């Protein structure tokens, strides 16, 4: 673990894996809820956790790098199920990249339990991990100028669902009617870091 200073009041803590990011985030949230850590934002990402709004980042940096972070405790809540149709325009390309049939590709994806590693890009957009590394896919060579809301998409090691229509370079393998973000709802985001997710093909539940 390495803690990099960011400005005067933030720390960027680098770890070796996505699992370590989840463990560190869980530990930081635990400390914040018990009142031993005062921080404005805790932002997990691929291999880092950003802590912003710290009063004494130097002391926390020294302390964290010396600390043993326990693995993230298992989530008590069951995985949420998101109904999907595997009807995306890039499904054939993804299946070809994986060296399987389209049917087999949907079976692999729907048979995987995902975890929200982190959020970003847009409110409610989660970067979900869970597929083995050999199923990583490249981004599209040419991004689309408009990806529809609810598009189920893959890029690198991640699966994501576009909360609203936006430009995007991910490979589209399906679609859902689930509402990923609704600011009038509590909580507004369907997915937050640590949430476990299963995609359920339409017609099966």
């Amino acid at each position, binding site marked *: 673990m390495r803690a990099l200073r960011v400005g005067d009041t933030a720390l*960027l803590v680098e770890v070796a894996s996505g699992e370590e990011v989840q463990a560190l985030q869980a530990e930081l949230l635990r400390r914040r809820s018990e009142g031993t850590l005062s921080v404005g*934002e805790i*932002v997990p*990402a*691929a291999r880092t956790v950003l802590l912003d709004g710290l009063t004494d980042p130097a002391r926390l940096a020294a302390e964290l790098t010396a600390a043993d972070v326990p693995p993230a405790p298992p989530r008590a809540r069951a995985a949420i199920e998101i109904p999907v149709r595997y009807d995306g325009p890039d499904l054939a390309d993804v299946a070809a990249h994986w060296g399987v049939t389209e049917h087999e590709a949907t079976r692999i994806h729907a048979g995987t339990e995902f975890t929200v590693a982190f*959020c*970003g890009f847009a409110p409610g957009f989660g970067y979900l991990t869970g597929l083995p590394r050999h199923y990583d896919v490249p981004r599209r060579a040419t991004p689309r100028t408009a990806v529809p809301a609810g598009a189920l998409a893959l890029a690198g090691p991640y699966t994501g669902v576009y909360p609203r229509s936006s430009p995007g370079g991910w490979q589209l393998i399906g679609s859902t009617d689930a509402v990923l973000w609704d600011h009038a709802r509590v909580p507004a*985001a369907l997915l937050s870091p640590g949430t476990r997710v299963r995609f359920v093909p339409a017609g099966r539940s």
Partner: protein
Amino acid sequence: MTDRALVVVRAGALTTVQDEGRPGHAHLGVPRSGALDGPAAALVNRLVGNPRGAAVLETTVNGCALRPRSTVTVAVGGAPCPVTVNGRPAAWGAPVRVPAGALVEIGTAVSGVRGYVAVSGGIAVDPVLGSRSTDLLSGLGPPPLVDGTVLPLGAPSSVHARVDAAPQPSPPAELVLRVTLGPRDDWFTPAALHTFTSRVYRVSPAGNRIGLRTEGPALDRARPGELPSEGMVLGAVQVPPDGRPVVFLADHPTTGGYPVIAVVRPQDLPAAAQAAPGTPVRFLAVRRR
């Protein structure tokens, strides 16, 4: 019955509703947003007797024109500009009584970029995640104003401002941004780090509420490739592949994959919000506190 509302007669180039933003949701991908020149927004609120966090209008270069349906107090600050009420000159940077139905015109900035218009009672659009700010990156909050927009106003407080006028900093002729290096300064060559902290850049016209873009010498990388996405802070100086530094402002994305060479002191960001295209920019490396 008094109709506490404000009719937008001329929306201007880009006028948005802004308050102190919605920090605390970055882990969900929600930018902080909020007024780019926070001290100016706080000052105009104080001049009309509003609490610090009341929502104001943020204009861009060419002001706007407004017609309140009830009698209100208005204060205009930030970028200096002419102000008129029913065609008669009125004070800038001071509370102005505007009768119901009168036309308030906020003219083109004499210098600077962003103007702030506080109205007694504050702009009372529905908050989203605790803030009324328009977030241009993610589309949260009310959309940018258009001609004909009608904005609800809150109830004015009974407390009157104790100040009639207040000094405001002039928009900068040269923008000096104090930076602390890192977290990814090791992604750049020593020559690039020297260039970054010694050469003069200029404010690019391509900037917006998401970031201040610059023109100037490109910064060479010491290593190729992209970082895995990582959390971004306000004032982060990100260097995209073209090598020209971008300073992240209030609507910045919460995560990003281009290396951050340095972070600007937050106290210097209000001046960055007022630096017009072409303004010289220097990044001054300072020791971390």
